[in-house]
């Protein structure tokens, strides 16, 4: 499994797309200096929110550009024959690929998080009065949970990649689920309020309720508001969220392994 993880990691760090994403993330972090000044009273909160958003967006773009191709490219270019001709089980291949992408995103998150910390420290030194509520621990907690979110998103991409041979379809499926997972609690809240006495169709209600159990709730991992207010999430709240994330990842990686085990490479 580790040789697969190692070459997946090498693929990631040698990808030009990754450098593009880094430049993009740096630009957004720099922009946070400008935008934060538009909200002088809330400069601390806006800066934290902006930097965490930049980190999250960079993680998302990285997953969509690198992870979607991980298995698809091996199948498309037939590199899979070379890899699986070695005494590597298909399960080890899936685990290796996933571990590799986790390592790439961990490295990227550490670098971008370090850059955001640097940006926040600079802003804090210039506007100490507006950073009274700011605390590093909640910020780091938000970064950590965002990393779990992106790991879950990568597991979703891996799952679609295990049966879809098209990278484009994989990207579309994953992105749709991500958008649904980011916003369905808003949809449920909206639908639960009756508008002018109109009833929601039972079919819509059923679809929404079912999707609640199928679509991973990405919104759970969004700690931007808490971090912006310098509030640390209680350990008793943090553990179930982490457990939810890890359980979903285990389920998706497990399903990917089962599907991939039965796959034929003609």
């Amino acid at each position, binding site marked *: 499994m580790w040789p697969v993880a*190692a070459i997946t990691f*090498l693929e990631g760090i040698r*990808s030009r797309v990754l450098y593009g994403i880094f430049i993009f993330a740096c630009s957004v972090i720099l922009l946070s200096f400008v935008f934060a000044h538009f909200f002088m009273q809330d400069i601390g909160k806006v800066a934290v929110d902006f930097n965490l958003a930049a980190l999250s967006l960079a993680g998302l773009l990285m997953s969509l550009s690198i992870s979607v191709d991980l298995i698809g490219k091996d199948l498309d270019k037939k*590199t*899979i024959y070379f890899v*699986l001709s*070695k005494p590597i089980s298909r399960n080890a291949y899936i685990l290796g690929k996933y571990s590799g992408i986790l390592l790439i995103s961990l490295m990227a998150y550490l670098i971008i998080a370090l850059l955001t910390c640097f940006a926040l420290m600079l802003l804090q030194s210039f506007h100490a009065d507006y950073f009274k509520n700011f605390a590093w621990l909640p910020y780091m907690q938000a970064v950590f949970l965002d990393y779990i979110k992106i790991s879950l998103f990568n597991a979703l991409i891996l799952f679609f990649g295990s049966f879809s041979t098209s990278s484009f379809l994989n990207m579309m499926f994953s992105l749709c689920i991500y958008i649904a997972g980011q916003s369905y609690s808003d949809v449920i809240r909206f639908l639960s309020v009756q508008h002018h006495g109109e009833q929601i169709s039972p079919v819509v209600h059923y679809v929404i309720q079912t999707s609640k159990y199928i679509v991973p709730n990405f919104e759970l991992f969004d700690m931007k508001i808490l971090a912006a207010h310098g509030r640390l999430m209680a350990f008793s709240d943090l553990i179930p969220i982490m457990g939810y994330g890890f359980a979903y990842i285990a389920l998706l990686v497990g399903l990917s392994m089962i599907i991939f085990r039965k796959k034929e*490479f*003609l």
Partner: protein
Amino acid sequence: MMNTPEKLLQLDGLCKSIRTKTLRAKNIPVLQDISFDVQMGDIVGIIGVNGAGKSTLLKTIMGFLAPSSGNIELASGVRIGYLPENPYYYDYLTLKELLWFAARASGMSSAAFQETFPEIVRRVGLSGKKSGRLRTFSKGMTQRAGLAAAIIHNPDLVILDEPMSGLDPIGRKLFFDLILDLKIMGKTILFCSHILTDVERLCDHVLVMHQGRIQEHIHKTDLEMTGHLQVLLEPSQQASDWLASLPPAMHVLPEKNGFHCLLSDLDRILKEFTQKHIRIESMEAPKQSLEDLFWQITRSAETGGV
């Protein structure tokens, strides 16, 4: 588990069908009742026209495709090296990284890899390209890098899928010599190729495939001597009369004023010639080429004969 320790690979009644991806899906048989075995030290070649099922057979042996029925048995502990057809490797890797992956994935330690690496790149003639990215390699170099990746862990059985396809004559010669080296080292090799002269020179056994079946299993000795002599006679009335009196089973060659006969019949025929004053112009034991045999077999399979 197989009983004979020398038998590395055994296929028994292997069949494979592929389901079409159309609205009215149906199963197309691509391999039918394939049975053969590969003994330790054998060089077995698989030949056949395009679409005969050669690559599918190798992919099924490698486990990339699941057999629809039948058995594939590998002797326990056999290490396999595989070179796919038109291989594509991670082109962002250097040759050293590719071979590191191949070695580590095959269970070699880092120390063993460091020891083997210089020797293996020397053998495939890529010593000067150790740190070169694979994306800068020509097709021939990629093919040799692929062979190095296939054999770095010293496999017992080497499976090569069209190893010389698309190579220029120099590349082909280099690759041919590499396979010959493996043969000299006593490796067991199973490979498919379109280049019949190479197969003929390298292989101990040749399997001729046609429409997913093994039509013929040819042993090297079958190619060396067919058991028939071609005898041409000096033109004379006696010779013409004698040829005209021969039964059709004797394979008369009227346009050449000669005939084919079995070696065992030669003594009797020579005595007869002495009595009838028939003079022999030439006599030879023609070697039947693999190409001739291949044509005969495929033509016979297409016309429904055996």
